[in-house]
C-alpha cells in the first residue's frame, strides 16, 4: 500500500473512510513516518483554523459595527 495524501488522511481522522480502508490506513500509519508527519501537519492546520475562527470574528464585528453606523447616518 502506498502513502496517503493529506486529503485521505483528513478523511481517515474524520471517520469518512470505509471500515476496510480505515484499517489499512491505520496499519500503514504505524509503519510510515511520512504519513505520520502529514497527519501531524493536519493537526497543526487545525490550530490555525481555530485561530482564524477566533480572531477573524473580531474584525467582522468592527466592520459590521462600522457599516451599521454609516447606514444609520444616511
Amino acid at each position, binding site marked *: 500500500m502506498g502513502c496517503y495524501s493529506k486529503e485521505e488522511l483528513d478523511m481517515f481522522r474524520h471517520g469518512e473512510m470505509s471500515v476496510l480502508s480505515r484499517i489499512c490506513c491505520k496499519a500503514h500509519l504505524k509503519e510510515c513516518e511520512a504519513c505520520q508527519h502529514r497527519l501531524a501537519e493536519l493537526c497543526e492546520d487545525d490550530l490555525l483554523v481555530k485561530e482564524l475562527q477566533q*480572531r477573524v470574528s*473580531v474584525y467582522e464585528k468592527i466592520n459590521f459595527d462600522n457599516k451599521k453606523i454609516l447606514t444609520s447616518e444616511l
Partner: protein
Amino acid sequence: MAFTTKKSLLAKVRAGDEISWQEFYDTYKPLMILVGNDCGLTTDENDELVQTVMCEIFQKNILDKYDIDKVPDNVIFKYDPAKGRFRHYLKKIVRNHAIKLWYKRYKDVPIESVPEPVSNDEWDAIWNDEWQQHILNSALAELKLRIQPGNYAAFEMYVFQKMPVEEIADLLGISIGAVYTAKSRCLKMLKLIISKLEEK
C-alpha cells in the same frame, strides 16, 4: 483561471508604492480601533485616534476639506524605508496619539490624579497581539484573491461557517475529499501569504 496579482498593502508599503488614503484607512482602521480599545479609549476617542494617525501619516490636514470616509484617491502616501520597519513606524505614531488622547481626557484633572496610561510593556503586548490579528485578516483578504473561487467557498464554509463537510460537498457539488483538498490548499497558501507578510 486567471488569478489577480494585486499586491497587499504591506507589500506596497515595502516597495515604496503609492497608497491611497482609502486603502490605508480601510486596512488599518480596524487595527487602530482594536489597539485603542485595548488601551481603554472610548469610541469617540478611537475615532479621533484614527483621524489623527491618518493625518500624521498622510501629512495633510485633509479633514478640513473632506469627510474621513470620502477622501479622494489622489490623496496618497509613500513609505520611506529609511524610517525602518513600517510596523514599528505605525506603532510609534499610534501610541503617541493614543497617549495624547488619554491625557486630553484628564485635561481638567490635577496631574497627580491622572491615572497612568498603559506602560510600554503593556503597549508592546497589545500591539503585537493586534498586529497578528491584522496580518491574519490581511492574509485572508489576499487568499481570496489568489485562490480559485470554488476552493475559497469550500474553505470559507468549513472554517468560518463551520458547516459539516458532507453539507459543503452537497452544496458545491463536489466530493468530500475535494472539500478537504480545498481546505488544505487554502491553508497552505494562507501560511505562505502570512510568512510573506511577516517578512522583515
